């Protein structure tokens, strides 16, 4: 019915639409017969737009007819949901890094953990990230992220199950995830993780590196996460309550994340509150607190607190990120030590180009035995980074980043990293 009425209308209107303006314009044509025709590009564009719209109408009418007559499959109607419904994405990056001091060659740009105070340059394959998500029922899904990466010292590939989660999302206000997940701590850790293509920069701020790559905070948790929206009007508050195994600081282990066995009966608790107010479109800010009691090998039992705050903004042109962390360790029988950490990052899009800059700082207390004797990360570490991201295609980004790092006990170091990051 809809098709017929519109078609009839057009057939009737078309001759009138053609003839009436011609009649109206007769005088003008007569006056301009001796003049060269003038073409107004804006007018031509309007006409092209109009033709486009009319083509769209024709397409619509054809679609109506097809639906009405049943001559084509009903494209609009989704098939009945079938479970499981698996989706797969891959992420990878290929890099080249030259630095005045040897570093860990991974996708983090510059993570100086030098075995020797000399320079080096290498091509390297960053993380090869296999991400899969599957809907198991309307409110239940599973997510996994398997990452293959080569070690800097042995050049051998290793496989990590970075995430495996079972998610139950019955409402916007109450959701439960269990498994190994990204700790909801600050912004960068959950917004960007293993998929370097997502990140504007070539890598993470140094202190937010992964636990086995020189990072200072527990970016993964094995346990349970409960999260959701808080009815809060235009403030759009979100809460996160997480509990898990925490870290095991053991110098004999490369990775302190406890996937299978917790080395003590204490559990890490992480709380976070995030606001995405209506008046801050594209932005968010939040606060969080993390507590665990850790039992580092060879050291006294230690009370661990991490407080954090962040603000992030992604507009159509600007990207602004800032996060601060304060870590407190208090070993039994000792006074508390504090490690402040922060970074600020800004980038602005110019078409496919995004120049950006970041400043990263942390000062791991030299009185903190966990950092000085186990993680070998004690002391001051700070420096600027500047870079350029070029979105070569929709799913390929080319990046170049220069870093300068000041680290206690070493001369200042320079590094240049080139990266091709992509998703597939």
């Amino acid at each position, binding site marked *: 019915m*809809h098709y017929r009425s519109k078609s009839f209308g057009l057939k009737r209107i078309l001759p009138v639409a*053609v003839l009436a303006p011609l009649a109206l314009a007769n005088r003008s044509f007569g006056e301009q017969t001796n003049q060269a025709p003038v073409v107004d590009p804006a007018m031509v564009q309007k006409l092209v737009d109009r033709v486009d719209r009319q083509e769209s109408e024709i397409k619509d009418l054809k679609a109506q007819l097809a639906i009405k007559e049943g001559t084509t499959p009903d494209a*609009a109607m989704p098939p009945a949901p079938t479970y499981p419904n698996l989706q797969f994405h891959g992420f990878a990056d290929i890099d080249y890094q030259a630095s005045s001091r040897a570093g860990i060659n991974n996708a983090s740009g510059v993570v100086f953990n030098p075995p020797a105070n000399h320079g080096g340059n290498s091509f390297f394959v960053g993380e090869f990230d296999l991400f899969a998500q599957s809907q198991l029922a309307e409110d239940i899904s599973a997510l996994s992220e398997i990452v293959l990466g080569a070690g800097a010292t042995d050049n051998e590939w290793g496989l990590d199950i970075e995430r495996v989660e079972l998610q139950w999302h019955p409402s*916007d206000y109450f959701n439960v995830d269990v498994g190994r997940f990204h700790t909801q701590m600050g912004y960068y850790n959950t917004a960007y993780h293993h998929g370097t293509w997502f990140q504007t920069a070539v890598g993470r701020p140094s202190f937010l590196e992964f636990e086995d790559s020189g990072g200072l905070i527990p970016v993964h948790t094995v346990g349970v996460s409960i999260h959701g929206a808080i009815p809060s009007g235009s403030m759009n508050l979100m809460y996160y309550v997480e509990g898990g195994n925490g870290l095991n600081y053991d110098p004999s282990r490369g990775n302190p994340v406890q996937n299978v066995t917790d080395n003590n009966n204490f559990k890490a608790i992480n709380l976070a509150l995030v606001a*995405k107010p209506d008046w801050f479109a594209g932005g968010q800010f939040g606060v969080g607190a993390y507590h665990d009691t850790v039992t580092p090998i060879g050291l006294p039992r230690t009370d661990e607190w991490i407080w954090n705050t962040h603000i992030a903004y992604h507009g159509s042109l600007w990207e602004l990120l800032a996060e601060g962390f304060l870590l407190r360790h208090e070993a039994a029988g000792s006074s508390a030590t504090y490690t402040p950490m922060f970074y600020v990052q800004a980038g602005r899009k110019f078409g496919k180009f995004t120049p950006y800059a970041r400043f990263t700082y942390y000062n791991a207390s030299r009185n903190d035995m966990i950092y000085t004797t186990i993680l070998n990360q004690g002391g001051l570490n700070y420096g600027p980074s500047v870079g350029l991201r070029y979105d070569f295609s929709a799913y390929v980004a080319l990046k170049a980043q220069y870093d300068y790092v000041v680290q206690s006990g070493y001369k200042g170091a320079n590094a240049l990293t080139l990266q091709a990051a992509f998703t597939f």
Partner: protein
Amino acid sequence: MWTKKTILVLVACLLSCGVMAGDTGGDLAIIVAKSSSLANFSSAELSKIFRAEKSKGPDGVKFVLAMRETGSDERAAALAGIYKMSEADYGKYFLQATFVGLVQSAPRQISSAAAMRQFVASVPGGIGYVRSSDVDDSVKAVTIDGHPPGDPAYPLKLKP
């Protein structure tokens, strides 16, 4: 059938009248099922729904989002007016939303107004958009910030 000749005649017609009509492009109407209790969204709420940050309506029914095909005027208006994103940013946003577990996939893509109406009318929780002139009795256009399509203060405009 619309032949090349017909279109050329139409172009000539439009050239002769100099696009004096001052076409504004019209409004982009947000449509839901006629039986839906939804009647109005704030601009912020609409943005949250289409960004998949708000997944269910007050009746507990999960929103099922639909977008027009890439390159259509309606999609361009939705990206500019609702998402405030470019096409590339939209793709990246939903890939990242999938990555962080916020959504299973990007909104369904539909290639005509008729199909969009049928989708919205027949899928529980279906929500999409059409030109305001394409709204018919099978669906309901909701108001945005209290303004119906056609109101000068209505916020979602198609590019002229």
